[in-house]
């Protein structure tokens, strides 16, 4: 077994967006950084839709567009509310998104993470793959001083350990720093990569050049569970997936892969992926419990970033940007302490939390803290309403010799029958209150 005698300024656990952002930022500032990743290469264990939000990466690597593996910049967003045979859509497409520095891109995570990791190495960080961190090492006072891995005999020591280990977060959990995930606070997502010639992708979605379309779908596709489906265009492939809250899934008796296959077979989705060659099937958890499921994010000698800190804004489908931003802010806090020659103690690392509170990360997490509970207790919001909308649209659009006034009365009656006036108003109020 190899031994590493040196002592590091920081050890980073994990090479996803959070870990790479942290390791890059610290290495670039001249800190001695060791990053450990259990996969054969960075990205080999990671799954995302995936939409990359440029702003978060730009704040770390301003010229990332020059060589990052980007698929398409997003010019059109579709939100589909689905019943079994229809979708009611809200689409927004704008030429303004064809800009010099686009705001959102589709990416392929295994490739993107590899690229990001190459930047960490260029900045001087040491990256060791195929190395699983088994546990944290603490001194007699409980202060974290390093890690034990499955590859090195002795402990690897550092002034601070940045946990960027993703949703499962076993390292922190087993050190007693946070609890096991709750089945109602995580979603399981399954996803497939569908390959098609570039021209076919472009003609099916009315695209040219590097422009792309993303679709978020809810309603009947999640079979009464809290969940959403997605379909994103890449250069010559389409990512299709669906995710549901684990508690709902376990109770339902529905298999994740049949849920995915039924989503793919929906008449609104099937033609978009027809004839494609499927090259991969992936599964991954998403922390969706929101602000109220967040664990402690700092302590003596340690900080937690990204999914391990439960930093996902499920309303806006944002995770990687919160991961990168929390990784960057954790790194900046550590650099700041180093420069002041102050230790990474519990008190000093409170600065990380303070800075995160001042950023969009915790502001957004706080804003939507009631949403997971709302959906948990009001599944009709995701299931009844899409069906109702479809019913309304269909009777409105069918021309069948009925007078418009009696049609309106009919529609109104049907809606009241499905939810009742009180229910409708209550749902509206509940949503508004949770949203505020």
């Amino acid at each position, binding site marked *: 077994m190899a031994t590493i005698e040196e002592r590091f300024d920081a050890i980073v656990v994990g090479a996803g967006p959070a870990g790479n952002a942290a390791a890059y930022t610290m290495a670039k500032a001249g800190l001695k950084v060791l990053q450990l990743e*259990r*996969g*054969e290469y960075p*990205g*080999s*264990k*990671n*799954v*995302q839709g*995936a939409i990359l939000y440029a702003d978060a990466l730009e704040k770390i690597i301003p010229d990332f567009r020059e060589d990052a593996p980007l698929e398409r910049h997003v010019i059109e967003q579709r939100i589909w509310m689905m019943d079994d045979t229809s979708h009611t859509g809200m689409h927004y497409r704008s030429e303004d998104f064809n800009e010099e520095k686009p705001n959102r891109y589709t990416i*392929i*995570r*295994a*490739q993107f*993470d590899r690229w990001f990791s190459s930047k960490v190495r260029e900045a001087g960080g040491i990256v060791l*793959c*195929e*190395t*699983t961190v088994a546990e944290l090492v603490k001194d007699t006072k409980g202060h974290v001083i390093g890690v034990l*891995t*499955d*590859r090195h005999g002795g402990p690897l020591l550092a002034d601070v350990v940045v946990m960027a280990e993703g*949703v*499962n977060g*076993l390292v922190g959990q087993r050190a007693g720093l946070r609890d*096991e*995930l*709750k*089945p109602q606070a*995580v979603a*399981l997502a*399954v996803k*497939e*990569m569908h390959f098609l010639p570039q021209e076919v992708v472009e003609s099916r979605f009315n695209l040219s050049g590097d422009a792309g379309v993303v679709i978020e779908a809810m309603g009947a596709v999640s079979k009464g569970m809290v969940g959403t489906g997605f379909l994103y265009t890449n250069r010559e*492939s389409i990512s299709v997936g669906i995710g549901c809250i*684990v508690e709902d*899934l*376990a*109770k*339902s*008796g*529905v*298999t*994740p*892969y*049949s849920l995915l*296959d*039924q989503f793919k*077979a929906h008449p609104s989705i099937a033609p978009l992926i027809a004839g494609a060659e*499927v*090259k*991969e*099937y*992936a*599964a*991954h*958890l998403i922390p969706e419990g929101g602000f109220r499921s967040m664990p402690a994010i700092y302590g003596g000698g340690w900080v937690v970033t990204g999914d391990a800190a439960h930093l996902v804004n499920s309303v806006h489908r944002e995770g990687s940007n919160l991961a990168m931003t929390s990784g960057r802010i954790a790194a900046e806090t550590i650099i700041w302490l180093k420069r002041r020659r102050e230790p990474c103690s519990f008190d000093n690392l409170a600065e990380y939390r303070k800075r995160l509170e001042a950023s969009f990360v915790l502001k957004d997490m706080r804003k939507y803290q009631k949403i997971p509970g709302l959906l948990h207790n009001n599944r009709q919001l995701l299931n009844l309403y899409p069906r109702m909308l479809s019913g309304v649209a269909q009777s409105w659009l069918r021309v069948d010799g009925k007078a418009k006034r009696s049609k309106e009365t009919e529609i109104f009656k049907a809606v009241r029958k499905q939810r009742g006036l009180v229910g409708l108003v209550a749902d509206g109020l509940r949503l508004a209150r949770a949203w505020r």
Partner: protein
Amino acid sequence: MSTQGTRIEEKLYQNRYVVDAGKPHIKVRDHDIPSPALKSLVTACPASCYSLNEQGRVEIVADGCMECGTCRVVCAATGEVEWNYPRGGYGVLFKFG
């Protein structure tokens, strides 16, 4: 498309794995009667690693495992699933993710 029609084996066949032969990273604790949580893994596992044997016990073959963690989360309260990451470099290897 029917639920039964889904062939999970075909989906997993696309994926790449480096199997750590003889060292399964997930184990089901010995039991006589599985809890409802443990039983639910027969359907909830996205790689269909869990099955019910003739004695009514739940078994796992973790070769197709994508290391998502769902089974560990579902059975956290009952402690019937012992879950670890595979050794560094082993397990699933996503080309795209």
